[in-house]
């Protein structure tokens, strides 16, 4: 795994060029460009209403940009529904995790993508393989999560592992994480940050949308700051500081 910037700079997995989105007269995102590289964690920060979630929803296929282009592996893509984003290898971990408490961990991981065996009309859910693969995913995430347990019995960290496990079913290129550490305990935050590192080590580009400065500075390689729909900063974590980012978010610092 190359650790220096040089090797990674070669290919951008996702490239946004002059992306704008307006809802009627409201300009939610204004002329934003950036690129994501494999194996890089990017912190996306900004105050409420700065345009973070609109931006992410465009990448996830919920909205179509009003202007600008999205390029995946160098090819331009246009998405109409979230399912298409998933087919392109863009996965999202929702803020509320989107888990069904009454189902097992494995059932949640495979929700919407169940495995089958046999031929119709004897085509049945392949419980055994789904348990095995879910178990393998949790093992890879180094999470003590049992595939057969119901999600309602799980801790916050385990629930995160289940939600993140979903993104590892397919060969995801990009994982968007919406406030993964917003409502969990300190110990669980450490668990989640570890999960993010595991994704990064697999060569996945991770976008971490967060309000929590310490989390972004612990795990991210780069930080992008949004204010009033515009990108006001995009720099390496090492070259920035929490004070600077706070200034950028509030507007005390105009732009860097």
């Amino acid at each position, binding site marked *: 795994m190359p650790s220096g910037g040089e090797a990674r700079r070669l290919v951008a997995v996702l490239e946004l060029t002059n992306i704008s989105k307006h809802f009627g007269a409201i300009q939610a995102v204004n002329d934003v460009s950036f690129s994501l590289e494999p194996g890089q964690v990017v912190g996306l920060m900004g105050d409420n209403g700065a345009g973070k979630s609109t931006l992410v929803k465009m990448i996830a296929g919920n909205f179509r940009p009003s202007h600008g282009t999205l390029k995946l592996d160098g090819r331009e893509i246009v998405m109409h529904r*979230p*399912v298409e984003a*998933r087919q392109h290898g863009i996965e999202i971990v*929702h803020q*509320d*995790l*989107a*888990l*069904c*408490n*009454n*189902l097992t961990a494995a*059932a949640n991981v495979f*929700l*919407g*993508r*169940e495995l*089958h065996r046999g031929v119709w009309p004897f*085509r*049945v*859910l392949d419980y055994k393989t789904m348990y095995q693969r879910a*178990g393998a995913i*949790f*093992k890879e995430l*180094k999470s*003590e*999560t*049992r*595939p*057969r*347990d119901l999600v309602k*019995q799980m801790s916050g960290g385990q629930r995160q592992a289940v939600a993140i496990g*979903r993104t590892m079913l397919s060969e995801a290129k990009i994982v968007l994480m919406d406030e993964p550490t917003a409502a969990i305990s300190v110990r669980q935050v450490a668990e989640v940050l570890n999960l993010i590192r595991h994704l990064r080590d697999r060569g996945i580009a991770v976008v971490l949308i967060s309000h929590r400065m310490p989390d972004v500075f612990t795990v991210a390689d780069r930080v992008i700051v949004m204010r009033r729909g515009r990108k006001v900063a995009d720099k390496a974590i090492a070259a920035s500081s929490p004070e600077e980012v706070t200034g950028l978010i509030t507007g005390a610092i105009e732009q860097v």
Partner: protein
Amino acid sequence: MAVTLDQTIEHKQQNWLGGVLSGQTFWVLIAVVIACVFLSFATDSFATAKNLYNITRNVTFVAIIALGMTIVIITGGIDLSVGSVLCLCSMVVAVTMNAGYSIEVGIAASIAVALIVGGFNGVLIAYLGFPPFVVTLGMLSIARSLAMVASNNTVVFEFGPDHDKLLALGGGAWLFGIANPVLYMVVLALLTGFVLRWTRFGRYIFAIGGNEHAATLTGVPVRRIKVAVYMISALSAGVAGIIQTGWLGAVTTNLGAGMELQVIAAAVIGGANLAGGVGTAFGALIGAALIEIIRNSLGLLGINAFWQGAFIGGAIILAVLFDRIRNFRQSE
């Protein structure tokens, strides 16, 4: 000794027996068995072939609809229209055959009506966002009214050229002297159980009941499945209606009145959770069986029939009480 990650992940928290013992359905089953044993000793007439034949046959109509109702309840919905739909479908098959059509045409018409009614409920609920309670309450009124219109509020007991076939279908006993309706019930229960446990459709039904928003986000076709679920519920009422027509040999427009409450009671006693996400096909049968045994035994024991409602209501509350106690224990 240190426990490795592998061991933790592989560990099954509950063994098979633990899973069975913690289920509400199991305890209701035990109650049914105890009641049967007690009644066999306490009365001369309970354990007779004739009485058992009666009980099993009486259970079926509630049980078949309870299967459909359980599916609806698992998605977090409710279908109050089943009693009226049963009546409407009975009336459609009766009126069609009375007009001289064959049994095939009569049954096809009846099933078509059931699917249309269920589809109407489902579309309003899934696509237009109506609360299930309201839509099916409306349909409860509409379907019974349509049954009255179809028959001009008369009793239909002449079923045309295929009269005897219809009576045999519902009243016969083609296999080992088991009443036909019981056979249909068993087949439908196995089918429902299979679908719930082993198919993607079944998995999605549970997912919708657990977290509808999550199901939508993960790509589950929530709306289509909800429509299908209400169609299945109406279909189960229609099938029960056709069988009951054959069994009774006559249809009146008050057939199935108030039945929706019995059906919901059976589903809930059998472990279906009205909040959604929980329920089994086997539970629906056991719930229906417990209700019928209570009714039957009160008669045999010479207890005033007015007490029936109190005992059935008590059973509903008691069954759910077990579930609550288990939840309290878990949360501690």
